[in-house]
């Protein structure tokens, strides 16, 4: 097992050219995807490290691990790093960049150089964010609520704000690239109804990136201007209205959660279809529900502000619209479950993560109904209930989807197979650790423990649940470390991957693993419908797996 399996020497995008220039100046969408993979993994572990410190602090009611303002900086930067530098770029920038061109039979994205610029903007934003973290951090909460962020905090709000502002343009340009590529560069025969659902999901995500991100860009510009020049736009003492900031902030930040979850839904649709050997149940409904989520996602933002002092009547409007946006998500979950009916299901690692996604996203979605219910939201908002809800959707949903995607396409990306038994073990650990971490927080939330509390010694009865949660967090951390280990291991020692190890349908499985720089020798002609699994032989088990 430990001897390095020698991959047959064949030209592909990895061994085509070597050297730092070939990576830092590449315009090949696959190499840019790998650059993104490395940078977002770095930020994932920074954010994860902050999360562990927070959980350690909450092990005991009294604030005894770190000082109060250090704790405030920890949860602020945990939020900012995870949301802006991991969750939003993760699947679109890594799996999307790698796969969107290949899946539609194109040689590359529509604007390759803008794709590289998008990565450099991400790195510039990330550098500013790291500088803000290292030189003292930010203590305003990831939401930058005013007037705390504009006039009552003396931490690095301007640096972090500019970092996120620049990073916003990275996701705008990624979204722009995807929309133009899907419209303009589909291979002959690849009609809209033959597009893989992964592409539908990324098309919907790009709509949200394009139309939402500029609003937080301008909001952060106004916050930075207000902090430096003492204008009065959001400062009530100078006539401004803090609720205006919250409207502008959440107008982007709620659709941003759909940027995070829609790509994972695309991944799960692909994985579900492949490992049940079946066409996704109700393909058009699942595709249209991605677009519906992206569109309706823009109408519901003020359900984050029900108790913030907005008018009662507007709260009614946003609450009923929030229930409207829950329907497409429910449709997707039902369709995935129905896809398994009469399938021929095998439980490789990607399938385990996909099933985990469906389960946890169901709980995340259902608890969303608690928060959209006005009367209940008054009691549970800003408590650990809402923390548990969004972690179920983001960590249970988006990160599980990301893991499913990484394990499903790793053979195509690296040309190597990873050890599947380790993969399944890690999936199980992540599932158990996740539930142990975040399920107790639902109960904590309804008990009334407010979020962002450094010390809760006034209510020692919360400690039991917090200890469970911290225990879960450590298991989750182990679960996330394992894949990094065996992925790196597989780069060197993994069995060379065949072109189609899972017997999946899709143009990306018809090129070699890893693909050549221009993906296809000649542009493919598509004559089959999406997911025509009756014409694709299931993989013979022993030949497909590494160990």
């Amino acid at each position, binding site marked *: 097992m430990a001897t390095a399996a020698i991959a047959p020497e064949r030209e592909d995008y990895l061994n085509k050219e070597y050297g730092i220039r070939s990576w830092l100046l590449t315009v090949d969408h696959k190499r840019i995807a790998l650059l993104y993979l490395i940078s977002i993994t770095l930020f994932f572990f920074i954010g994860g490290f902050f999360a562990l410190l927070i959980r350690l602090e909450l092990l005991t009611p009294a604030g005894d691990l770190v000082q109060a303002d250090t704790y405030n900086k920890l949860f602020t930067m945990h939020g900012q790093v995870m949301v802006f530098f991991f969750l939003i770029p993760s699947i679109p920038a890594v799996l999307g960049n790698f796969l969107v061109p290949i899946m539609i039979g194109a040689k590359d994205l529509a604007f390759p150089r803008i794709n590289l610029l998008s990565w450099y903007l991400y790195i510039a934003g990330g550098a500013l964010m790291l500088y803000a973290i290292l030189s003292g951090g930010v203590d305003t909460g990831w939401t930058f609520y005013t007037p705390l962020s504009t006039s009552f905090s003396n931490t690095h709000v301007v640096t972090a704000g500019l970092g996120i502002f620049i990073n916003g343009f990275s996701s705008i340009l990624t979204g722009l690239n995807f929309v133009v590529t899907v*419209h303009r560069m589909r291979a002959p025969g690849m009609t809209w109804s033959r597009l893989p659902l992964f592409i539908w999901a990324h098309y919907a995500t790009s709509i949200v990136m394009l*139309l939402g991100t500029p*609003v937080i860009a301008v909001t952060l510009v106004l916050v930075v201007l207000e902090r430096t020049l003492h204008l009065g736009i959001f400062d009530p003492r100078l006539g401004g209205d803090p*609720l205006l900031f919250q*409207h502008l902030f959440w*107008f982007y930040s709620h659709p941003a959660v759909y940027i995070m979850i829609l790509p994972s839904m695309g991944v799960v649709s692909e994985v579900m279809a492949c490992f049940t050997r079946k066409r996704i149940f109700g393909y058009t409904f699942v595709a249209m529900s991605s677009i519906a989520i992206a569109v309706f996602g*823009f*109408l519901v*933002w*003020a359900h984050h502000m029900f108790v913030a002092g*907005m*008018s*009662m*009547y*507007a709260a009614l*409007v*946003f609450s009923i619209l929030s229930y409207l946006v829950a329907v497409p998500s429910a449709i997707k979950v039902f369709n995935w479950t129905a896809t398994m009916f009469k399938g021929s299901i095998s439980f490789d690692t990607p399938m385990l993560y996909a099933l985990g996604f469906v389960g946890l996203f169901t709980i995340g979605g259902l608890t969303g109904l608690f928060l959209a219910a006005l009367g209940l939201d008054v009691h549970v908002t800003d408590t650990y209930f809402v923390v548990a809800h969004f972690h179920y959707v983001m960590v249970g949903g988006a990160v599980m989807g990301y893991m499913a995607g990484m394990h499903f396409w790793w053979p195509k990306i690296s040309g190597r197979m990873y050890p599947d038994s380790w993969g399944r073990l890690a999936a199980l650990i992540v599932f158990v650790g996740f539930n142990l971490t975040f399920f107790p927080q639902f109960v904590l939330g309804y008990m009334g423990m407010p979020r962002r509390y450094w010390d809760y010694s006034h209510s020692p009865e919360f400690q039991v649940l917090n200890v469970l949660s911290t225990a879960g967090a450590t298991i989750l951390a182990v679960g996330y470390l394992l894949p990094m280990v065996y992925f790196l291991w597989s780069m060197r020692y993994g069995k060379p991957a065949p072109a189609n190890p899972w017997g999946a349908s899709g143009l990306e499985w018809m090129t070699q693993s890893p693909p050549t720089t221009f993906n296809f020798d000649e542009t493919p002609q598509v004559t089959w419908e999406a997911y025509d699994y009756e014409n694709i032989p299931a993989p013979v088990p022993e030949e497909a797996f590494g160990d």
Partner: protein
Amino acid sequence: MSEHSSSAKLYWIIWGSLIVLTFVTAGVAYLDLGPFNTIVALTIATCKALLVILFFMHVKDASERLTKVVIISSIFWLLIMLGLSLADFSTRTIGS
């Protein structure tokens, strides 16, 4: 985009009407039209914007349907943001 470039005369006419509309809107502002001042100013501005978009940006003659969809949806999204936010700001004094 436009294979056949329409004659320069059309552009000069459009340009002329834009300049005229500019001085009209500046002039009308000094008249007292009660609540209609803002509405008139905005309609003139929208006419000017349409002239520029349709003729100068070749949206009317050469570009295909997708470009029109992108323009209309961007403007619609702006109206979503303005409209739904106003739902809060305008009704806030009623229910405190």
